[in-house]
């Protein structure tokens, strides 16, 4: 089984969990994304997904729960979604869940936009801030 990726979130980088443990798989990117070097931050994640795509779980549910991301991050997020799209094209069961706070229209729209661009099952999930 592949090694999981677990990255703690900071005030400028998101929390990332990519854990293919079949008992309790978690694929999640959450928090804030405005890293100093976006490519350096996301490259290992994209590479991990390439490897995972060769032998994925029966079903992959990928959660995005971002509070904020800058435009430089937006391209890298699309790169992740494109990898998931490739898996879906490859007859794998993939679902993207895009979480957004109920009062955040911009984040909701960002999800709609990505859903428009990539051909992959995409679910918008509204949540309430505590």
């Amino acid at each position, binding site marked *: 089984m592949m090694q999981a990726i677990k990255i703690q979130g900071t005030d400028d980088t998101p929390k990332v969990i990519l854990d293919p443990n079949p008992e309790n798989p978690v694929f999640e990117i959450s928090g804030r994304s405005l890293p*100093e070097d976006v490519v350096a931050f996301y490259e290992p994640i994209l590479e991990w997904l390439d490897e995972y795509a060769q032998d994925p779980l029966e079903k992959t549910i990928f959660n995005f729960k971002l509070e904020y991301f*800058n435009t*430089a991050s937006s391209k890298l997020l699309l790169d992740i979604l494109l990898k998931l799209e490739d898996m879906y094209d490859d007859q794998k069961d993939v679902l993207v869940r895009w979480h957004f706070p109920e009062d955040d229209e911009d984040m909701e729209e960002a999800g709609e936009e990505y859903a428009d661009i990539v051909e992959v099952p995409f679910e918008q999930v509204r949540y309430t801030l505590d």
Partner: protein
Amino acid sequence: MGNIVKDSKKSLEFVYDFYVKMKRNNINLAYEGEITHQITKAFTSLTENNMMRDEDYSSVQKKVFHVMVECLQNISKHADNQFNFISSKDGRGIFLVSKDETEYNVTTGNVVKNEKIEELKQMLEHINRLSREELNKLYKQKIREGRLSEKGGAGLGFIDIARKTGQKLIYSFIKIDDEKSFFVLTSSISRVK
């Protein structure tokens, strides 16, 4: 000796003058220098704290935060640095945030080579002519076109500022000499929901 006293008095008066001008123009943040990632983080968190204290709508706070990040990154990545005495990887420029009853204004200024002005102007004019829907379309097209420029970003930032604020980008190029100009850009974010 006498001259030094006179000069230092003058410079103190300059400070007061500067303070009065900042107050008069409702400027609550002013900076000139290198725009590093640390500076970007410091300014955005400072402004966030102020906005929370002033109880601005969270949607307004997010927009101001976003515009600040994109504007600061524009300077950090695109200001032409070779005119500085000290070479560094981060661009430098001036950065101002002002606020009145109805809106926030985020202003940046930095030196650009004259040869880049035409392209920049065309890009900004084009963005200012587009409707919200057209901006969304252009944004999608740009991220789909993919790979980041070697400096990471560019173009996308302006489009996103325009669509998130719903306002035109206000800008000007002020000629310094035959080689370079000063590029000023202001974005406004309404404080009213």
